[in-house]
């Protein structure tokens, strides 16, 4: 017991690092995927649609093990489990986040696009100054949801020896010959202790956003959420 809890806390810290690292990657990559997906050139947009679909509908654990084994060979140098964990988790959820961005972008009224053209903004200016500032705030709660979903997915990365909580519990069990009840229950409790309050926070954020912007805007947000393909809840 005296060793278990510190070990789990270390595992929790690694879990948090992996979650935020992967979330940052997923946010950036997801945005790129979402914008490429809207490209007028069919040669770009169609493969993007299938790439996103492919990443989204195949298991994270397979993708992670694949990258864990193939990436070091490919680039000719060893990579840490945390690096590969962040890369694979981030890549996997970039597919989900691209759908979130898409729904946000599609929710921006057409007049805004036309205004950007009329004012002769460059493409970069159009996205950064006009479209994204309107597209992202309404989907922030959904993005928050995914942060929690990703947090709960991290233990899958024990398959690539990432020292998160479940692996820590396993090592503890192996070294002390303890039965699994207490360690695994504690892991579950730790997850619950982080993810449940966080999900309450996200729900609060969502309600506040809906209220702040008035009902009409709130409806628009709700409509947008219903359009997110393959959305997962927490």
């Amino acid at each position: 017991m005296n060793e278990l809890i510190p070990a789990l806390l270390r595992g929790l810290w690694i879990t948090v690092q992996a979650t935020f690292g992967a979330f940052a990657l997923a946010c950036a990559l997801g945005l790129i995927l979402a914008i490429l997906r809207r490209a007028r050139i069919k040669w770009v947009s169609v493969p993007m649609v299938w790439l996103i679909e492919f990443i989204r509908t195949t298991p994270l654990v397979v993708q992670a093990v694949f990258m864990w084994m193939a990436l070091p060979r490919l680039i000719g140098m060893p990579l840490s489990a945390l690096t590969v964990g962040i890369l694979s988790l981030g890549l996997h959820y970039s597919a989900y986040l691209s759908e979130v961005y898409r729904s946000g972008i599609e929710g921006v009224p057409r007049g805004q696009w036309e205004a950007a053209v009329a004012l002769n903004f460059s493409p970069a200016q159009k996205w950064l100054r006009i479209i994204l500032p309107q597209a992202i705030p309404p989907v922030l709660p959904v993005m928050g949801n995914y942060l929690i979903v990703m947090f709960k997915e991290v233990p899958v990365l024990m398959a690539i020896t990432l020292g998160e909580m479940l692996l820590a519990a396993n090592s503890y069990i192996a070294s002390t010959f303890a039965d699994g009840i207490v360690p695994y229950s504690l892991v579950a409790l730790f997850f619950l202790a982080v993810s449940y309050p966080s999900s309450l926070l996200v729900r609060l954020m969502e309600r506040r956003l809906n209220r702040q912007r008035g009902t009409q805007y709130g409806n628009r947000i709700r409509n947008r959420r219903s359009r997110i393909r393959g959305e997962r809840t927490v």
Partner: protein
Amino acid sequence: MIEVYFEKIVPLMLRGVPMTVLLMLYGTLLAAVLSFVFGLARLSRFAAVRGTASVLVELIRGTSLIVQLFWIYYALPHLGVELPKLPAAVIAIGVNYGAYGSEIVRSAILAVPREQREAAIALNFNSYQRMRHIIVPQALPRMLPPFGNLQVELLKGTALAYFIGLGEVFYRTMTQLNYYLYLLVPIFTGLLVIYFALSQLVLLLYRWAERRLAAGRM
């Protein structure tokens, strides 16, 4: 190399597909039942039923599927409940996705206009008949698309059974991998393609079911 891949490895991987599909089907069945049980319980008139269901659902959703799987397969035997691999995986997957599915059922039922319930009361349907014949049939088409997505998630979740050594497609592949490390990339690509194909099949079935349900009504 190509011969080895297609004549030896691919058949070996494909031999795991039936177990993956079986796990998915049993898991889906359990998840579907629990979705309705939890979903309806969370809409119950009785606060105690509502509360219990909500707490259970939050407990399940707040912890990870893989942690639940470990708990059921590695911890539960110490409490005297020893489950074989397949039932353990089915229970973990069914319970976990059932909790998520309950939210789908709940919100689809809440989305049926209140007036439909009132019309059913005016025609003197009892509460079971109202649910069974009026509300649920109207909520069902609304549930299908999110259920389709959830089932793809469930299919992906079956790969976690690898951790308890159940011989599904991922486990089968991993046990062969050491002999064919030089074929790493094609093997994993093939594995991902298998999952992708199964996912698309699932989504196709749901789209077909949606069209069937929508036929005539609109």
